């Protein structure tokens, strides 16, 4: 009995998922990079893996040169679980503070999953002056907070797509659909979280209302919802030609299955995280042909043939871990962030936070997701040309189970094809 109790206690002690990894063999002390995020979610898990991959590459090349000494990077990760339904923001913040105090990191990479946790956590990051390169949370609220007090919050950067840039890609995709098929009735379904709410509202405001589209319905679903039948019935009844989903929860895969099984005559075009990776075809038994999905950063779960760095990164991950990347958001900017940080530290020749921040602001690096530069809100600039800015990619699942990029034009591999049973309005 005592053994069983002991075993259970051991398992419970191990369960918080406090993981340390890094390299050995350097005489100098390592530079710690903290990864506090939702490690139990695909985006967090794969982002953590690519950070380790980038750190291994940098360490294999001799590490980072600071003050005339080559120092290795070391990764310290903690699962703050902020993506899980019902986990309060203060609990996630405790995890961030814990890793800052215990591991004394030179910088944070990846960071909170939920924007609610990021925005609240900005005060902790500012208090301890730890530069952070966020790669998952997307609400522009963090940039607005930074702009109100730039001196206090200057430590926070975002390398991934934010909701404002996502709106541009979704609007571009809708414009393409309208141009090719004449569709102009849309039903918006989004997760009831800050970034998805903001994205849904912004697309309506900046595109649908101005371009003459009719938004026939909007539905907000709490995280964890597992039945979307009501909204799909409403979409059918209202004559929607396009359904625009915006979800990053695992259960959103059910929406795609229901869309197919209920035979809703509308094009599914937006963002559903389970649809992003190549494995989705098998997961959904090949029932996703025709669905259009956005990959938030090129390199995360998809590569473009005309940007070799994205292909190299995609293949490198597969060779390292045995499986292709599946998360359409997070991994590519997490990988880039490690290199951006390494370059900033070397340019600053110091680990002093303000010096690193000053160099991060000067970032101009072309890599996996195109050219990365930060704007005045410390947000990576996204656009449609990888030579000018970072890029996202919108692709369509073909009926044969492959993915072809359809937007932006600079990366496009083909045109949109309507799924069987759906007719063009032109």
């Amino acid at each position: 009995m005592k053994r069983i109790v002991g075993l259970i206690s051991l398992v419970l002690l191990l369960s918080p998922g406090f993981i340390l990894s890094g390299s050995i063999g350097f005489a100098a002390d390592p530079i710690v990079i903290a990864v506090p995020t939702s490690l139990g979610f695909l985006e967090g898990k794969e982002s953590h893996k690519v950070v380790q991959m980038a750190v291994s590459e940098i360490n294999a090349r001799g590490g980072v040169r600071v003050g005339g000494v080559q120092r290795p990077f070391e990764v310290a990760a903690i699962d703050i679980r902020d993506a899980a339904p019902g986990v309060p923001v203060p609990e996630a913040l405790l995890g961030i503070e814990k890793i800052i105090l215990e591991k004394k990191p030179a910088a944070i990479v990846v960071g909170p999953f939920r924007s609610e946790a990021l925005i609240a956590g900005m005060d902790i990051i500012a208090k301890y002056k730890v530069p952070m390169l966020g790669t998952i949370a997307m609400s522009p609220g963090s940039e607005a907070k930074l702009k109100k007090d730039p001196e206090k919050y200057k430590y926070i950067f975002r390398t991934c797509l934010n909701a404002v840039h996502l709106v541009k890609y979704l609007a571009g995709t809708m414009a393409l659909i309208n141009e090719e098929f004449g569709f102009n009735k849309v039903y918006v379904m989004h997760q009831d979280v800050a970034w998805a709410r903001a994205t849904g509202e912004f697309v309506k405001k900046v595109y649908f209302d101005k371009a003459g589209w009719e938004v026939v319905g909007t539905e907000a679903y709490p995280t964890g919802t597992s039945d979307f039948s009501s909204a799909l019935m409403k979409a059918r009844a209202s004559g929607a030609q396009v359904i625009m989903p915006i979800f990053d929860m695992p259960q959103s895969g059910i929406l795609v299955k229901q869309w197919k099984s209920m035979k809703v005559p509308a094009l599914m075009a937006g963002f559903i995280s389970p649809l992003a990776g190549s494995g989705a075809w098998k997961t959904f038994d090949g029932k996703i042909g025709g669905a259009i999905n956005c990959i938030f950063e090129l390199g995360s779960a998809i590569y473009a043939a005309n940007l070799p760095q994205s292909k190299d990164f995609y293949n490198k991950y597969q060779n390292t871990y045995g499986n292709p990347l599946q998360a359409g958001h997070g991994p590519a900017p997490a990988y880039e962030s490690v290199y951006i940080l390494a370059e900033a530290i070397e340019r600053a020749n110091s680990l002093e936070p303000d010096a690193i921040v000053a160099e991060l602001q000067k970032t101009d690096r072309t890599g996996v997701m195109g050219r990365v530069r930060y704007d005045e809100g410390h947000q990576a600039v996204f656009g449609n040309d990888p030579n000018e800015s970072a890029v996202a990619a919108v692709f369509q699942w073909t009926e044969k189970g492959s993915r072809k990029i359809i937007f932006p034009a600079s990366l496009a591999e083909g045109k949109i094809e309507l799924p069987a049973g759906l007719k063009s309005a032109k």
Partner: protein
Amino acid sequence: MFLGTVVYAVINSVILALMAIGFNLTFGITGVANFAYGSLYVFSAYLSWMLLNWLGIPFLLSAAVSILVTMILGALMYRFILLRVRGQALSEVIATFGIGLAILELFRYFGMVGFEYTLPVFVDHSLMIAGVYVDMQRVLIVVIGLALIVALWVFTHHSSIGLAFRGIAQDERTALTLGIDSDWIATLSVSLGAGLAALAATVIVPLGSIAPAEGYDVLIKALAVCIVGGLGSTGGVIVASFAIGFAERFTDTYLSSHWTMIVSLAAILLVLAIKPSGLFGKQKELEERI
């Protein structure tokens, strides 16, 4: 739209009943609130997935094996842990919750997180019912759910073990004087409850995917249904499942999905305020009257 909503509300109700019936059965017989229930649901689903994908065992056989293994796990959990704390409600809750947490976190710790963790549907087809398309998996869930309720009624009314279950549930001491081994029956009831969680996972998981967080979700839904229906009352579970199931889908359709969770919680609060023992519950009913 109305008929379509009714169809999906019935499906939702049966799903809720399937999720709650095992928890309710164990509590009704032994008085043990098995807080590892959601974890056993997830454990069974992952086990089926592993047998199917790693060992290449056909799905139905994988599902049968995982149901059996989950039942054994439930029995072992009772014999080696719960038996020691039986009758101490708080200790039972802490022990089962701890076991559940350990199971879920182990899956998370070993990186079993991703969208590829799902089970195949039994039949890949859609039917038109009342003017709305419904996939065969959901139709089968309703059929299996209703068959299970009938089977459980027959089992508890016309089999010796079932009658022993009811005997222990009514009065454990009197049952003991009639030669019924209460520990053995309690072991069987926890095991059967675990098996019902596994069966629910086998039919429900193909609709979506498996994730450690599902364990908490299933536990919360089972608790909600049992609290509204009355802990230990099978009839109460069925009525509560339909009440909550219909409330959820009609809120989705005629209000907004944004309010779905609030409506369900409000229903629970209302029942607790008016009748704390639940709609058909016998627990503490006498104290309420006094």
